[in-house]
């Protein structure tokens, strides 16, 4: 029965949920589920998992742009049909993984991937820069201060050698969010790229009462900068510009308070976050660079600053040390000295529990 637009509720299926996970497991995954004994990385991007049963599965991990066309997915399917019995998976960082159950199938698979231009770069394992978790940017979102896909492409091009190698002290997780909502992993990444505004919203007084629920707008402000205000005959709001720090949350609630600005908007860089519990507990990312202008299409200043941070870390950190662990060991004063980044007023916290971040000791380095 095809869909009948004249009888929209006919045959409607709801609440069926996703297909059960094991419906799409390759047979060797089903057979060895929960029986894995150990794994090894054979070369960057290539893993082997060995089961208690003696079975082996070889995984080839390839980079992907996350934003992908049906044509690219079909090409991924062609590869999976040809080499992997028609099975494929995606990772939590949006890389693609092809799996085979025998070592003899590995080389043909990798040769095939390498023969298809630069669509399927092999890597993203071990102490590498793997894929950048990112957001919608100017491709689909209404609140961004920056693009996502373009910046990710520019950064990955520059750091490409680190994707297909294990040269770093530990894995480096880079992420991007195009506004303070921080969809994804920006608040907990080794290096994070965040879109920021620097100008208060424009208030379209004649629109506010028609398109917004004013109490929601007032409640949306973390710094209580918004008050109700009558402007002529219009019920509107007033924004105390000295209290506004341009988070954009009021615009999320009210379309009559736009704040995007080509000249004002740009990028803040954050460092030192992690989510794993390995050695040290999870950490938030902390501010490294308050502002870099948007420079489409290649964002050279952002890209070079990230590269500088990454390479300073790579040359100075000890094995297994994540970026945050390295900074905790050497101290922030050394971090700024070694990276050559400028320390500014913006780095000093001034929100709520700010004092917990100030230095309450005479222990520091000159």
């Amino acid at each position, binding site marked *: 029965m095809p869909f009948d637009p004249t009888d929209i509720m006919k045959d409607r299926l709801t609440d069926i949920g996703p297909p059960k996970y094991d419906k799409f497991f390759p047979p060797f995954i089903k057979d060895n589920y929960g029986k*894995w004994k150990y794994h090894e990385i054979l070369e960057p991007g290539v893993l082997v998992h060995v089961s208690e049963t003696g079975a082996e599965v070889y995984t080839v991990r390839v980079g992907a742009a996350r934003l992908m*066309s*049906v044509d690219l997915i079909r090409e991924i399917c062609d590869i999976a049909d040809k080499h992997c019995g028609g099975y494929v*998976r995606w990772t*939590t960082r949006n890389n693609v993984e092809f799996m085979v159950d025998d070592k003899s199938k590995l080389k043909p698979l990798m040769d095939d991937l390498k023969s298809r231009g630069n669509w399927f770069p092999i890597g993203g394992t071990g102490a590498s820069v793997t894929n950048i978790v990112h957001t919608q940017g100017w491709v689909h979102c209404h609140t961004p201060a920056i693009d996502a896909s373009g910046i990710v492409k*520019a950064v990955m091009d520059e750091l490409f050698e680190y994707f297909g190698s294990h040269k770093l002290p530990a894995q480096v997780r880079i992420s991007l969010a195009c506004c303070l909502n921080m969809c994804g*992993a920006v608040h907990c990444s080794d290096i994070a790229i965040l879109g920021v505004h620097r100008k208060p919203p424009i208030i379209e007084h004649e629109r506010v009462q028609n398109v917004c629920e004013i109490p929601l707008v007032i409640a949306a402000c*973390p710094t209580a900068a918004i008050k109700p205000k009558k402007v002529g005959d219009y019920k509107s709001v007033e924004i105390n510009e000295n209290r506004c720090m341009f988070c954009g949350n009021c615009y999320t609630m009210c379309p009559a308070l736009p704040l995007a600005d080509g000249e004002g908007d740009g990028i803040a860089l954050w460092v030192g976050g992690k989510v794993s519990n390995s050695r040290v507990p999870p950490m938030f990312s902390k501010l490294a660079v308050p502002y870099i202008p948007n420079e489409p299409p290649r964002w050279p200043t952002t890209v070079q600053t990230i590269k500088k941070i990454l390479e300073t870390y790579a040359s100075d950190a000890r094995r297994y040390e994540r970026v945050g662990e390295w900074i905790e060991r050497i101290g922030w004063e050394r971090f700024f000295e070694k990276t050559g980044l400028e320390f500014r007023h913006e780095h000093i916290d001034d929100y709520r529990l700010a004092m917990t971040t100030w230095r309450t000791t005479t222990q520091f380095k000159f």
Partner: protein
Amino acid sequence: MALKHATPMLDELEKGPWPSFVTDIKRVAARKPMCEDLLGLVEMSYEHKEGHWKHGGIVGVFGYGGGVIGRYCDRPDLFPNVAHFHTMRVNQPASKFYTTEVLRKLCDIWEEHGSGLTNMHGSTGDLILLGTTTDQLEPVFYRLTHELGMDLGGSGSNMRTPEGCVGKARCEWSCLDTQDIIYDITMRYQDELHRPMFPYKFKFKASGCPNDCVAAIARADCSIIGTWRDKIRIDQEAVRAYVGGELVPNGGSHGVEKRKLDIQKEVIDLCPTRCMEWDGKNLKIWDEDCTRCMHCINVMPRALRPGTDVGATILCGAKAPILEGAQLSSVIIPFMKMEPPYEEFHEFVEKMWDWWMEHGKNRERLGELIQRLGLREFLKAVEVQPDPRMVNTTRYNPYIFYDPADVPGGWERDAKSFRERHHA
């Protein structure tokens, strides 16, 4: 065939070694006017350094209150084919294994009814179908459910699509059936997922071990992280093989060439509780002092394995900065057995939701409500006793609340009798 809009800036992003989203979109744009106009619109955003999508957009399918993100461009005069550019969130199979058969069918449906562009995948886990018009939402939904057995994911003030790590499907460290837990939550709470009924969004994520490959502790209001209560399993022979240089440390993460593991420097000295000793022959672990950080297991996967008395640590409250600042999830239940039918976990979830739905303000995440009313109130609501494992440190201010019932004589006092003892 030349495309309709000149895109000099986007063309720059066709260069370089990383897969180009521009080149990818262009090949579809040759037959899809929607993609052609998308490229034009994004090029204009690159020129203006400002996005060109209108605020919000409320669209969906009958019977559901979420799953579709409505989007309209703000220059339909220039780019009519992206006047509507809605996104559909499709609930992915847990841990994102697919057959090519289902992916091909999905591609065919999406090419017919939408832009032919996707995100594989959204940050929460959904398979994102990127860009279609309002009139196509119902036909796509009908075909997803009838032809593929697939359903929409979550959006809005509801339970969002749960997701887990690869778990036992392909990892030796997983202490949980992450896929099964995620599938169970997703199916049991379909109503909460499809029909927004909460003060704000609510996310579940499950990682099989404390490495937390799905970032549950940072990205879920309720984080389920696998752990164990017994001893780390040691194969002393394999430990010696690492030290002797026959096995590659860290599974090859730091280079796959063979080298001798400096076990003192790379494992013993980096253990956060210093609960290990190497006497040159055997590795000893004082498991009662181990905090299960995974480091030694990560470095020597062939020698060390998690214990066998496994379960989950349940943590709550993670969120991004808006409104009160970013939070990581905090320990609520140090250990819970996680086996089907997961009744103990369901009871916990439902008590948690009852409390949050009753007390949560509009757009207040669980983590913020716990901050506002206090962890004590939350623990009472979910009927969990306080436990030192819930804190990094006890409080360092003396502003302690007491219940009058817990204080001898209560709070009803008489000034007259006070003044009989103390003349004013």
